[in-house]
């Protein structure tokens, strides 16, 4: 089979899975929905492997294959096929997406075992994976937009999965609205590009773009900036990032899947996919790089003070996505995609570990209430350590290689990019600090009651389940989390999934050691063949310097975290007092929510209120509707007066009519 056939299979299996579960959940026995869902994604992963193998059989120059199922729309100047593009970049993406998704499905099998919405969850999950695969396999803008919107819808469904939690539904709405903003950007950007190229197909667009656009021309810059809006919204970059922390309301596997491994990387993928266009629009590239750098710094500082364990990881995700956005914006495509892969491994691992701890806490997510789980949960602890080390960029864990490579390429661009380089290393330091702050607070210190209970062999179950976000009492019916929680130590599927991810977190970096094996760079080369920025011309000195600096900063961050949160917890308190303004700034997430609220939400709400209170009442109700009803009422009153109900009166009118008609004819003749 050709690579494109495998590509279609990759799409088919999750779609079949979601349809089967969605329509058959009443007849599917027991927990088979989860097995079906997991199996579907596993099959998709195998098909992705098949695509990889089939593609490796082609000559490097012929590794960009398209396949079209049918003509979706043929109109004046538009020729939209349902077509996929199978090239190294998309194969790379589907491998990551389907691979990580398989493990997360496996994890969910145990994690949501007691949830009443089990089948629904897997239907959503499969739909999400289908959408994401559609997004990365799309061979033209139209299908990309479809996949893009599907992903937004699926994320809404998954974030609001526990739909009777008001916080969850609000978070889902927030995520959806911001994502739609991104969709609008994407569509408008597509229009700007389509206007000149006249084609929606990716390969044709990339072919003709250098001829129809001059470098830095207004339309291409505008188009790429609008594409960036889409990328920022999906990838949670400032200022469209506020949905990501709130999206932690979803079940933990959702956080692992959507908000670590797949959905948020869509923006990175988009920029990499559109690199031909972005290289024609240097201004857009610069914007992307600066925003990425800003995001990685700001998210890092926010993560320092958050107490919700999942939010810490969420801000960490934002920060790491910032690295990737910065990387692909400055031309470090291979490095950005490489970081995307390693990040998917260790961030999914961290989320899964967080899920395990939350299970041990009986649904509680606050770091304030955790502590001392090291002995009670050795496996989770080990996973956290591995994930944390990879995230902090300690050799030989995977994050070490990928992060430093992005910064290396950034530095190679020279000029003001050095500022980004510095920001990247500050961010690396912050990463180590907040990661190990989280680990130390959860696993070190005095064991809390739940940890002691677990050590005694009993998993804590809260008497009254509460919403961890606002402390509201809940029940465990459908629409709420299930009654029992699960920890990795006691559930084999979770253990398997986390072990595999841990192996990936340790070893994935080894495939791309600069100057040694460069597997990713070589694999992705056909996609980026035309890019002048792609081939690294490494300065060896800088490379070595960067690797050492990254390692040192990571270790320093861990040491600092150890000193503050394990050795002398009083330092944290004094630092909080001394640096109160900074602490508040970080704790309140740089007031982005308040800013957006003041700048966008409130004016919009005020406009809505004006429209409904004043405009609607006075103009629409009073004048338009009231006036027209008044006219109709007056007219009908007049007509009704004739309808007296007196038969004789009617007869008289009839005769009068006859007489008048006769008179008319008499006068006529």
């Amino acid at each position, binding site marked *: 089979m050709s690579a494109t056939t495998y590509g279609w299979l990759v799409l088919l299996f999750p779609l079949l899975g979601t349809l089967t579960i969605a329509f058959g959940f009443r007849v599917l026995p027991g927990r088979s929905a989860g097995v079906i869902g997991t199996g579907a994604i596993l099959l998709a992963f195998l098909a992705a492997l098949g695509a990889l193998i089939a593609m490796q059989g082609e000559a490097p120059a012929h590794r960009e294959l398209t396949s079209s199922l049918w003509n979706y729309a043929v109109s004046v100047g538009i020729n939209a096929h349902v077509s996929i593009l199978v090239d190294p970049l998309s194969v790379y993406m589907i491998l990551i997406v389907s691979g990580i998704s398989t493990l997360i499905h496996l994890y969910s099998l145990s994690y949501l075992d007691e949830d009443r919405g089990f089948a629904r969850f897997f239907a959503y999950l499969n739909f999400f994976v289908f959408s994401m695969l559609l997004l990365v396999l799309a061979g033209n803008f139209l299908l990309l937009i479809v996949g893009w919107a599907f992903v937004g819808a699926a994320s809404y469904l998954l974030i609001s999965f526990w739909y009777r939690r008001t916080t969850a539904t609000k978070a889902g709405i927030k995520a959806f609205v911001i994502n739609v903003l991104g969709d609008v950007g994407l569509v408008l950007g597509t229009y700007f590009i389509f206007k000149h190229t006249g084609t929606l197909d990716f390969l044709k667009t990339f072919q003709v773009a250098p001829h129809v656009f001059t470098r830095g021309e207004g339309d291409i810059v505008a188009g790429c900036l609008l594409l960036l809006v889409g990328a920022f919204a999906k990838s949670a970059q400032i200022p469209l990032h506020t949905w990501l922390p709130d999206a932690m309301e979803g079940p933990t596997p959702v956080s692992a899947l959507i908000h670590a491994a797949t959905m948020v990387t869509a923006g990175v993928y988009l920029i990499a996919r559109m690199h031909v266009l972005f290289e024609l629009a240097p201004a857009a590239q610069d914007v992307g790089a600066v925003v990425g750098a800003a995001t990685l710094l700001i998210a890092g500082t926010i993560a320092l003070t958050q107490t919700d364990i999942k939010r810490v990881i969420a801000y960490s995700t934002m920060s790491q996505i910032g690295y990737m956005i910065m990387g692909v914006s400055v031309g470090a495509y291979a490095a950005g995609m490489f970081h995307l892969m390693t990040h998917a491994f260790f961030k999914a691992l961290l989320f899964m570990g967080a899920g395990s701890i939350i299970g041990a806490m009986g649904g509680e997510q606050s770091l304030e209430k955790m502590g001392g789980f090291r002995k009670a949960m050795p496996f989770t602890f080990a996973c956290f350590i591995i994930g944390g080390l990879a995230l902090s960029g300690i050799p030989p864990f995977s994050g070490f290689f990928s992060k430093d490579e992005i910064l290396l390429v950034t530095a190679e661009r020279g000029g003001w990019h050095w500022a980004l380089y510095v920001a990247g290393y500050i961010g690396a330091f912050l990463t180590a600090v907040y990661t190990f702050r989280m680990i130390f607070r959860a696993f070190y210190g005095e064991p809390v009651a739940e940890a002691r209970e677990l050590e005694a062999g009993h998993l804590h179950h809260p008497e009254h389940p509460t919403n961890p976000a606002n402390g509201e009492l809940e029940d465990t019916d459908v629409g709420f989390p299930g009654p029992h929680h699960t920890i990795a130590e006691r559930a084999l599927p979770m253990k398997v999934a986390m072990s595999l991810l841990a192996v990936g977190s340790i070893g994935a970096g080894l495939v791309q050691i600069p100057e040694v094996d460069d597997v990713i760079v070589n694999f992705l080369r056909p996609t980026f063949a035309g890019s002048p920025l792609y081939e690294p011309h490494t300065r060896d000195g800088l490379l070595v310097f960067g690797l050492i600096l990254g390692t040192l900063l990571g270790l320093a961050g861990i040491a600092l975290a150890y000193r503050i949160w394990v050795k002398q917890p009083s330092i944290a308190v004094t630092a909080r007092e001394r640096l109160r303004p900074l602490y508040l700034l970080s704790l309140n997430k740089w007031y982005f929510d308040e800013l957006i609220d003041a700048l966008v939400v409130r004016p919009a709400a005020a406009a809505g209120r004006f429209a409904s209170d004043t405009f609607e009442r006075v103009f629409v109700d009073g004048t338009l509707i009231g006036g027209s009803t008044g006219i109709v009422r007056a007219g009908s009153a007049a007509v009704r007066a004739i309808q*007296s109900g007196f*038969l*004789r009166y009617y007869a008289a009118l009839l*005769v009068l009519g006859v007489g008048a008609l006769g008179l008319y004819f008499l006068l006529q003749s």
Partner: protein
Amino acid sequence: MSIAWYLAVSAIVFALGAGGVMTRRNPLVVLLCLELMLNGANLALIAFARMWGNGDGQILALIVMTVAACEVCIGLGMIVAIYRRNLALDVDELRELQG
């Protein structure tokens, strides 16, 4: 007698019927007055048929009679129904269709 005489009689009968429909309040009599109007028209039809020496007018008169019979049928049925429900047999009282 010339046709004009017949036409005059028909006009008078028609006008009398119309006046009766407008003035009488008993539905039975209203129906009777309608019959008068129809008959006036019939007479005119037959007079004109005679004038042209053509049977079409007579056929039309026959059809009018049929329609009149139908109308009597329904009208009397309604009067009986009204009577059954103990309503006043007075078209001025029967004004439920007032707007």
